[in-house]
């Protein structure tokens, strides 16, 4: 198991009496496109927030293998710290810096994971200028990669849903991550945008070597994109396998898709 990037063991997350995640164990291999699916309230976003340090599970361990091959424990770390380890994410309802331009949004991602020199920033020294130039170049590169070059100067709030997703992905990639967590990236996008998005996600993995962890409701997208899936229900893992295995799994059909198997394709 030396190519495991995320190793989640027996994680339980409670909010008062409500058990949001119940003894969840899963792992992600390096370079894998992994998906987590499940009905609403199954605990998918709770899992995401636990993996990124936003929530602190009461039990279990989450280990992440960072850039230099060093294993770090996520639990007990703050969200910004987790981000610097190499875990980037997007949000279910996209969260951007709305009053800033597309370019500035990505640039903030590109420069924030490095250490800051306040004095350098105050005096605008050569180190700061070099840093700034590097961030600018990286931003241009990433905007080009996600196809937002023409909208570099647009205010983030006036971007379409599809473009917002791209922006969030570019901003996440700007932090130079090992793994990119995507929380329902296809929500609110139209079919053609969905197709482009799937291509983009695949390119992120293939061209940049970033592992992908995906939560998605759109079955078509998940089944075409993911190499392996976990199914969550009532805060616990009920199945794991390749898309084919999951599609054939009676437990999944029962729990996630309900009794009407037709939904599997259409939803």
């Amino acid at each position, binding site marked *: 198991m030396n190519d495991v990037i995320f190793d989640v063991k027996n994680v339980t997350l409670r909010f008062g009496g409500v058990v949001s995640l119940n003894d969840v164990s899963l792992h992600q291999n390096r370079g894998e496109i992994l998906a987590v699916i499940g009905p609403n309230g199954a605990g998918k976003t709770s899992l995401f927030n636990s993996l*990124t340090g*936003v929530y602190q599970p009461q039990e279990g361990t989450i280990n992440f293998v960072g850039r230099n091959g060093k294993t770090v424990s996520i639990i007990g770390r*703050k*969200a*910004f*710290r987790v*981000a*610097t380890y190499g875990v*980037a*994410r997007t*949000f279910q309802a996209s*969260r*951007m*810096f*709305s*009053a*800033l*331009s597309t*370019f*500035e949004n990505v*640039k*903030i*991602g590109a*420069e*924030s*994971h490095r250490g*800051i020199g*306040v004095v350098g*920033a*105050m*005096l*605008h020294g050569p180190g*700061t200028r070099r*840093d*700034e130039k590097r*961030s600018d170049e990286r931003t241009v590169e990433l905007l080009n990669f996600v196809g937002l070059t023409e909208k570099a*100067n*647009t*205010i983030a*709030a*006036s971007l379409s849903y599809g473009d917002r997703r791209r922006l969030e992905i570019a*901003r*996440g990639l*700007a*932090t130079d991550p090992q793994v990119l967590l995507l929380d329902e990236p296809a929500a609110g996008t139209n079919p053609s945008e969905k197709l482009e998005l799937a291509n983009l996600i695949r390119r992120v993995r293939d061209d940049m070597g970033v592992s992908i962890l995906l939560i998605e409701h759109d079955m078509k997208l998940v089944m075409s994109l993911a190499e392996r899936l976990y199914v969550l229900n009532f805060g616990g893992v009920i199945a794991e396998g390749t898309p084919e295995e999951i599609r054939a799994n009676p437990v999944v059909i029962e729990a996630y898709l309900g009794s009407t198997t037709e939904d599997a394709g259409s939803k």
Partner: protein
Amino acid sequence: MKELFAKTYVRRLLITLGVVATVELMTGPPGSNTAPTAGFRGSFAESASFFGLFKTQRWVLFLFIALVAWGIASFWINKGPMVRATVSRALVTPRHITAKRPVRWGALGALLVVAVLLPRIETSAFWQAAMVEQIAVYVLLAIGLNVVVGFAGLLDLGYVAFYAIGAYTTAWVTGALPLPPLFHHALNPFWSIPIAILLVMVAGILLGAPTLRLRGDYLAIVTLGFGEIVTIFANNLYGITNGSLGSNPIPHPSIQLGPVKYVWGLKPVPYYYLALGFIVLFLVIFSLLEHSRVGRAWTAIREDEVAAESVGINPLKYKVMAFAIGAASAGFAGVLTASQSNNIFPASFTLTFSINILVLVILGGMGSIAGVVLGAILIQTVTEYLNNGQHWGYQPSDLYIYLGALLIVMMIFRPAGLIPSKRRKREILLSEADHENAHLDEALLGDDV
């Protein structure tokens, strides 16, 4: 009758008349015990000059003002959008010119020259003193608070504390407090500048580190408490601060570096240049910071803290930084006040003072350095003008009535301030569009950065 009141222009006229009548009462003569209605009668019936043209009574003058105001308001409400569109179209070319770098630097240079020559142009003792005590000090405080409130989006209601700490540090290191100075060696106030700036920055970190975990209202309450604590300490710690009696005389600053020797004395002008130098220094540092990654990180935190954390920004660190950096200019303002006025008293460092500075920042334009400087200069100059002699029955104690009214009017018509910060203005537009569920594109109107 009912139909008459239903007409908007009639209602507007009545509102204008009401407002003007209130202003008339406020600016009129006071009543007394023996003649309680004298103020009321006098406000309307006292004789007045109609713009120097002929003698009449106050009510005629104010009725005329009300009608003019009503006319302007009606015109603006009906034709305002059209006028604004025309003006902004006419401004396209000038804006292109003013956006050019050499033009901007030239304009800034010209402003600096004016600032340097100002004490030669305005030579009255009153204004020369006001330039230091009422304008320079307030500009320093406003640009510092702007870092905290405008850049980082943290509501600080106890900003006066840093000013007080700066002033008391000066008194301490010069040996003007019961508390003996470090190593029992009194320093010249000039050297208290770096010490005071350092100390207020440490105070900013000490206050910020535990409290900046709080958000919004909670932070405001805690900073309010901090401001009060500092004032109460200054008032009650007789053994250290000499309590409400204030400090002993603080010497004037002087500097001796080899052959160069300079002594600041009783005259305000040298202090003005000292202040101007530091204002320019702080302005340069703050605007470089605003356009650096630190400034962008502040904006990111202000707009969406969760998203900011997701790209690796440590919110607490940046907020504490804003507190410490913003405190620096207040620390210097404290030194300036203490060394110029010779004595400091706890009564000068009140909550009202903090709020006063906040009002300057809001009126000028939160997050906009140019706006905040202009706001501070404008408001303080007008206030001083009104304080200097009799003008329209103005009493210094009425200041907050007018400031309050001005604040309300500004919040309605120009919520982002006199010279709005681009980012802030967009944030306000976005949140308004959210409320009204209007189309965002319309609010932004092709507003490319």
